[in-house]
């Protein structure tokens, strides 16, 4: 080990076994689309399973996994610090993600997700009360 960090870059990383993503670079702030390419939200933060603060990590223990995309007030928390109350956090389970590229694709319809509740509420209670607001334009 040397104290000069520039001299660190000698060992090559082992070849990847799957798609490699840098979380901040490739996932955060990306748009999330549902299976019909309808925008759902943006990825404001990620929830990681398997990391316990302050607890020693035993060599060979399972690596942490990404468990959810967080959205809603999470962007403000990320920028200014702190944690949103669990009741206010909107989670999209990572198992619903089908592809990560320029955007994040989900394998489900956005209507089924908590992330679109505000849009559904506005559609039902505000737009729906306007005459003609409950059907597509003719």
């Amino acid at each position, binding site marked *: *080990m040397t104290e000069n*960090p*520039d001299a*660190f*870059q*000698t*060992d*090559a*990383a082992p*070849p*990847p*076994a*799957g*798609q*490699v*993503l*840098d*979380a*901040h*670079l*490739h*996932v*955060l702030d990306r748009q999330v689309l549902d299976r019909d390419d309808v925008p759902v939200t943006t990825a404001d*933060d*990620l*929830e*990681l399973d*398997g*990391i*316990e*603060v*302050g*607890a*020693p*990590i035993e*060599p*060979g223990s399972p*690596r*942490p*996994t*990404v468990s959810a995309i*967080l959205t809603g007030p*999470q962007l403000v*928390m*990320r920028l200014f610090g702190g*944690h949103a109350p669990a009741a206010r956090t909107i989670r999209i389970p*990572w*198992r*619903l*993600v*089908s*592809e*990560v*590229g*320029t955007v994040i694709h989900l*394998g489900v319809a956005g209507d089924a997700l908590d992330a679109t509740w505000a849009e559904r509420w506005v559609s039902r209670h505000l737009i729906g009360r306007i005459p003609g607001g409950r059907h597509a334009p003719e």
Partner: protein
Amino acid sequence: MLLSDLLDSDAVDADGRRVGAVIDVRLEVSGAPRQLLADTVVTGLLVSPHSRFSTWGYERRDEDGPLLIARFQRWLHRGTFLVAWDDVERVDEGRVVFRRGYTARDAALPRAPRER
């Protein structure tokens, strides 16, 4: 734990010396297979000795345009290295401790996802 709790954390070696700041978390879609996408596991942490702020990842890719921005970014993040998750001993609040004798690896991305 949230990703944002790890980002900007101080990275220290086993003797408590600060070696940089965690600017990104490397993931790999290579865990247990699922219906849509395999589990995405944390494989390492990217540590920059000179800056806490990661922006466009020039230091991890071959891209060099626009030239001025690329040069500034490379200078800002000179010496950035990757530490495998197996070399992480403990994660504290705002601090990540590496094992004694940890290996600092090349931070370059193998391939940009958009090329796939």
